[in-house]
């Protein structure tokens, strides 16, 4: 060990008064999260899997180049739904790992002991999810362009994906963070989160008949996934203006705010050990 005396030479030299970091701390953590996604092997593997799913979907279309305009619009609609689902899955995984995974790896406590308010920690983790979603959008855009640029309403469909898809994926990201904070286990958080995600995404696989039943309609009204799908249907297939989709946007935003509140409460109880 070199010069153990100098190990403490700065003690007392750094005499700047303590200043709360809050927002700046959130940015620092978001930067770390994005690095973890974009530069770690695990994160890149996830992005690779996402791109392979989109490629598989896109390759299914190559055999049929004679889609009518409506069929092509339907494909764009399906792809928007697929990207939103994959994005929600990605942010759920990232969210569950944000606290639960860090606890399991032992890296949570040093983070909890940094001079940051818990809200900054949450904002930073959400910032990481936003970057994850942006990466997902960046991957999806070429596919959407290849599928839909010769069809109708592609720009409106992409706008729908961004404006309505973002609150939906952040809803599941916040859910992952909240479950990870309460259970202190990424695996448990992911298990529960996946069940919720499958339930919420069920309108994508339910037929129109089931969606028109009383329960189906009620579920459709409150489901954030349905909000995205219904708005995309209206904008891409029915060519309605995007600005008329205020109700679906309000539903998606409301869910995001609820999930954000739940995540905030869960993180504020963190001590680094099971309670």
């Amino acid at each position, binding site marked *: 060990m070199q010069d153990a005396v100098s190990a403490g030479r700065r003690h007392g030299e750094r005499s700047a008064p303590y200043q709360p970091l809050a927002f700046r701390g959130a940015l620092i953590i978001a930067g770390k999260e994005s690095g973890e996604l974009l530069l770690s092997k695990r994160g890149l593997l996830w992005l690779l899997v996402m791109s392979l799913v989109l490629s598989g979907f896109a390759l299914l279309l190559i055999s049929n180049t*004679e889609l*009518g*305009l409506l069929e*092509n619009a339907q494909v764009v609609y399906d792809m928007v739904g697929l990207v939103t689902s994959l994005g929600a899955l990605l942010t759920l995984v990232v969210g569950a790992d944000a606290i639960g995974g860090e606890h399991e790896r032992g890296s949570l406590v040093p983070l909890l002991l940094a001079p940051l308010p818990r809200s900054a920690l949450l904002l930073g983790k959400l910032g990481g999810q936003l970057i994850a979603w942006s990466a997902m959008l960046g*991957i999806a855009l070429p596919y959407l362009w290849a599928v839909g640029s010769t069809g109708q309403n592609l720009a409106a469909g992409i706008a729908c994906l961004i404006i309505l898809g973002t609150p939906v994926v952040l809803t599941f990201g916040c859910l992952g963070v909240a479950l990870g904070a309460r259970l202190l286990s990424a695996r448990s958080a992911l298990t529960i989160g996946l069940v919720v995600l499958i339930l919420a995404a069920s309108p994508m696989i339910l037929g129109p008949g089931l969606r028109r039943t009383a329960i189906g309609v009620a579920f459709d009204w409150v489901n954030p996934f349905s909000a995205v799908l219904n708005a995309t249907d209206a904008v891409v297939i029915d*060519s309605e203006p995007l600005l008329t989709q205020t109700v679906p946007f309000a539903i998606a935003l409301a869910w995001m705010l609820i999930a954000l509140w739940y995540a905030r409460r869960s993180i504020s109880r963190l001590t680094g050990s099971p309670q």
Partner: protein
Amino acid sequence: MSVVSIAAAFLLAAGLSAGSAGSSRAEQLKVELIPSSGNPAAPHTGDALAFRAVIRNDGRTPISGVIAWISLLEVDPGKEQPVDLEDWSAQRAASLPGIAPGQTAETEWRLRLIQSGSYRISVIAAAPGDAVDRNFSHVMSPFVAFTVASRPTVETGRMLPIASGVPLVIGAMLLWRSARGRGRPPVSKDAGN
């Protein structure tokens, strides 16, 4: 003139006036469908066509409650059928304000071309009124013809590079990270634990 011929003449006059009253309402209207000058000369699927319908009141009395709607007919041999306008146009019928004698009312129609083929389009106007009118009728504009050419909506030339290129790029980044991690052997305990 005999009583029978006077009665027949009276009945004929009554019938004529009734027919004139009923048919005169429909005949009051004249409808014309005018394609927009900005429409593409050779439209393809995905394009939009705009039309202007002009409804004129040629009668001597004002007419109100006029409803105008468009009708689209596919005329490709073997596929002749009326077309459901649900996806072609958001606006299917228009209620027009009252039209004074000699005046016109106009309405715009925008049609999105969903499917390729040959079509005839016309606009129909009617003033059904409040009571059941046995002489109720409608007026139809002359047909406007147009043909929609197909456009390949999935271009293989674009799809394949993206479907293969995007995973390849990400896979290359993954390999680079793996190689970076393997490039240096783990530091042994003897080397400064």
